[in-house]
């Protein structure tokens, strides 16, 4: 089997401007959504309480909402989770100390969320046989720290990858790769902002994993660019880049396809916990192909890469073992 019967190099660079305009538009749109709508952060970042419960029959969401409102909670969210028998309830952090669902410690006089009381007061209103399967309470200050740590991780990943690429290739490549990848990350975030999908810690992990993964693509193409510069003299820079992309496109698509097979499997079988994680990866993988080929390479070209940047006489060992045309 061979999916890629490509007779001659595809002139990607001829359309570089078009691709860059498309990229810029999607990027700007993503930023606009991020600014206008913002991310729907999970309670891991904002603080709050999440309670999941399972019922014997379809749960009565209205009954649950009524019980929560009677208790005087602020904007509780009640929704089905996976099936109609599973319910997820989200409360704001300040509601954890609401007297209807909390318990006051005799010594410290501090009220903390109480699962047993919540089950009696609220869960019982959703139908027979309701059982709490998961409770998660996060205080607001922990959330702030997590958000700060996440931003720091993003910065360190970018800096680390740039430094490595600058050392391995050249600064133009490292700049181009990082721009391409930030473009991916911003677009993933844009999707999460637009659809108001829940942005949790595991989604953050997925985003950072995509960052590392997507750089692979740029690295593979850049490796080829360097090799082509060495082996084939007399080609113009766009021709070299076209050749590099064309000869790696089959690998790019097959690799991403394989990874996507795995991610799709997670999306189907992984259940609600892995849902957004897999979704972030899917968007990241799709845009990863696009950005590494059609964003990073044109940027390298605009930055004015040349044969001399890459083929240094001392390091040029391969020039001796292969005849060149």
């Amino acid at each position: 089997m061979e999916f890629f019967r490509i007779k001659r190099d595809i002139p990607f660079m001829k359309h570089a401007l078009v691709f860059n305009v498309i990229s810029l538009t999607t990027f700007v749109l993503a930023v606009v959504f991020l600014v206008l709508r913002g991310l729907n952060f999970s309670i891991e970042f904002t603080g709050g309480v999440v309670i999941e419960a399972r019922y014997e029959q379809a749960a009565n969401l209205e009954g649950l909402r009524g019980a929560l409102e009677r208790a005087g909670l602020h904007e509780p969210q009640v929704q089905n989770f996976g099936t109609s028998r599973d319910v997820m309830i989200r409360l704001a952090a300040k509601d954890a100390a609401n007297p209807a669902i909390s318990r006051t410690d005799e010594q410290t006089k501090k009220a903390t969320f109480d699962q047993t009381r919540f089950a009696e007061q609220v869960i019982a209103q959703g139908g027979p046989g309701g059982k709490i399967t998961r409770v998660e309470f996060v205080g607001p200050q922990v959330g702030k720290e997590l958000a700060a740590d996440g931003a720091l991780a993003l910065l360190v990943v970018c800096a680390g990858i740039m430094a490595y690429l600058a050392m391995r290739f050249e600064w133009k490549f490292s700049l181009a790769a990082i721009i391409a990848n930030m473009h991916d990350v911003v677009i993933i975030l844009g999707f999460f902002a637009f659809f108001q999908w829940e942005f949790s810690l595991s989604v953050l992990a997925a985003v950072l994993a995509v960052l590392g993964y997507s750089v692979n693509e740029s690295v593979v193409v850049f490796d080829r660019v360097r090799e082509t510069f060495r082996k084939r003299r007399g080609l113009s820079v766009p021709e070299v880049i076209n050749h590099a992309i064309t000869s790696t496109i089959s690998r790019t698509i097959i690799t991403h396809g394989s990874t996507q097979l795995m991610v799709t499997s997670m999306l189907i079988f992984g259940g609600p916990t892995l849902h957004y994680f897999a979704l972030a990866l899917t968007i990241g993988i799709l845009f990863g192909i696009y950005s590494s080929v059609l964003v990073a390479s044109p940027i390298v070209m605009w930055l004015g890469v040349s044969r001399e940047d890459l083929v240094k006489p001392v390091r040029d060992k391969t020039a001796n073992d292969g005849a060149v045309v």
Partner: protein
Amino acid sequence: MNRYPVWKYIIICLALMTGLVYTTPNFFGEAPAVQVSSAKATIKIDETVRARVEAVLKGAAIETTGLFFDANSIKARFRDTDTQLKARDILDNALNPDKKKPNPEDRDEPFTVALNLLSNSPKWLTSLHALPMYLGLDLRGGVHFLYQVDMKAALSKRLDALTGDLRTLLRDKNIRHAGIERQANSITVRFRDEATRAAARGVIGDSVADLALADGNDGSDLKITATIKPEAERRVQENALKQNITTFNNRINALGVAEPIIQQQGSDRIVVQLPGVQDPAQVKSILGRTASLELRMVCESPEESAAFASGQVPFGCEKYSERGGQPILVRKQVQLTGDRLTDAQPGFDGQTQEPAVHLSLDSQGGRIFKELTRENVGKRMAILLMEKGKGEVVTAPVIRTEIAGGRVQISGKMTTQEANDVALLLRSGALAAPMEIVEERTIGPSLGADNIAKGFKSTLYGFAAIAVFMIAYYMLFGLISVIALASNLLFLIALLSLLQATLTLPGIAAIALTLGMAIDANVLINERIREELRGGASAQAAIAAGYERAFGTILDSNVTTLIAGLALLIFGSGAVRGFAVVHCLGILTSIFSSVVVSRGIVNLIYGSRKRLLHISIGEVWRPEATPSKAPAKS
């Protein structure tokens, strides 16, 4: 050119064998077990306890499938849960004979008997330290708490104590000050003249090392402002955290939870994870208890002693037992509580060199203690540790003289070990600083099992899909790639089992994702070989060139992925860290398996053939036009 020396094959075989050995415990599953551990700091688990457990089980004709003994506990494995439950009850009753007493306050329970799960794997595997992967709470169910220690309160307590120290110190040295005031973060001492201030500064600097002193003027008054030195502040915080962790350990031991995790996180947080526990309210109320030390006087008037001898408890007194088990009568009135105790350290008596416990009380506690001792010279006082509403007299020393200054020494009739234990009990009885829960999670056991099933299914079907595609597209080379990928999974699980890293649901997702990414290396190699063949290279040359040329790229791309993984590991917490650990390990194993293992198999199949014309790597399509444009090979 495509042959590996024998040692390389040996390395591959050894790696695969090791991988297999350390992966196998995961297939044996877990068996019900009963864990016996000490409920008190003073009782050690040793060979005699083991023999007792064995004898009790034998006496009840309960068959164990294994008895395991380590420093902290004895674990007995059973065939089924019925036997396990029966054994738990029998052991609990035999080891804690007080269980049957109707009044819970009379019960003395030296051991904790808890239900647990033990790996079913054969002994030789366990002795190789081959254990199943350690599952996180989201996979096995349980409760998780993150406590924030209120360091301000700990420092404030310390400042209180230091204020008292200064007061006594200046009085002892006969330095006349115009007032000592405790401010929010400092202590201000006022003086009337410069000479006194200089003297005070010298004395304080000499004997209270924890304070940094600064001179100042306040109107006509001269003053010294004392603040806690940063290093002393750090020490106070570290000690507060350590003491709280010790207290938690003791309290959780009493709960009888198998394999609890109590760890420091950051500089002021404590993580508590209790697998299998489903009622967070109970845990919270037990962990959150404060002030459980009490100082009372012993009832020892002749009438009281006489009444006690005849089996009565006189009015105003209560019966408690000493650590040896002898009963003792103690007054109901509490003189001092553990709140006033700032520290307890084992040591030696300055004169007699007997083992002793040194207690430090804060300023108010010191004053109360001084009065108490002045009025009761020659009498006995009792220090009680109150746990779960029942008390035990830790020690009941005789008061010899009036004790001022808040520094108390308890000595006499103690071994060094006992002094250590008493100090630990006194220290761990109370929390050093108040704490607040900043994160709490409860995961039901069924949800845990559900998560395992979902994670497993995702990985399985994803792997199957990749395998089908690779074999269809690359034929034999695809099959080799799949074998390499399977060996990657083997190495990864073996490594996770060996390191006992905590596996969570994001960790399972990372396994799946890492496999999906690791196939990249083999795709790169296979595509490169096809390309070389397309360019007209011979089969053997194409294989060699394919692997060599692809290696640089594989390395580059793995390093960039690893950079992202490491950043996640360092800055991430919770779900992110669980993901990152597996991700990083997976990248490392994938380089070995996709390059070395797959090359080994290829060499084994094709390497020895001299005239190799065709290799099974799927269709190598050659463009009809301009074949000469491809670079020539040497």
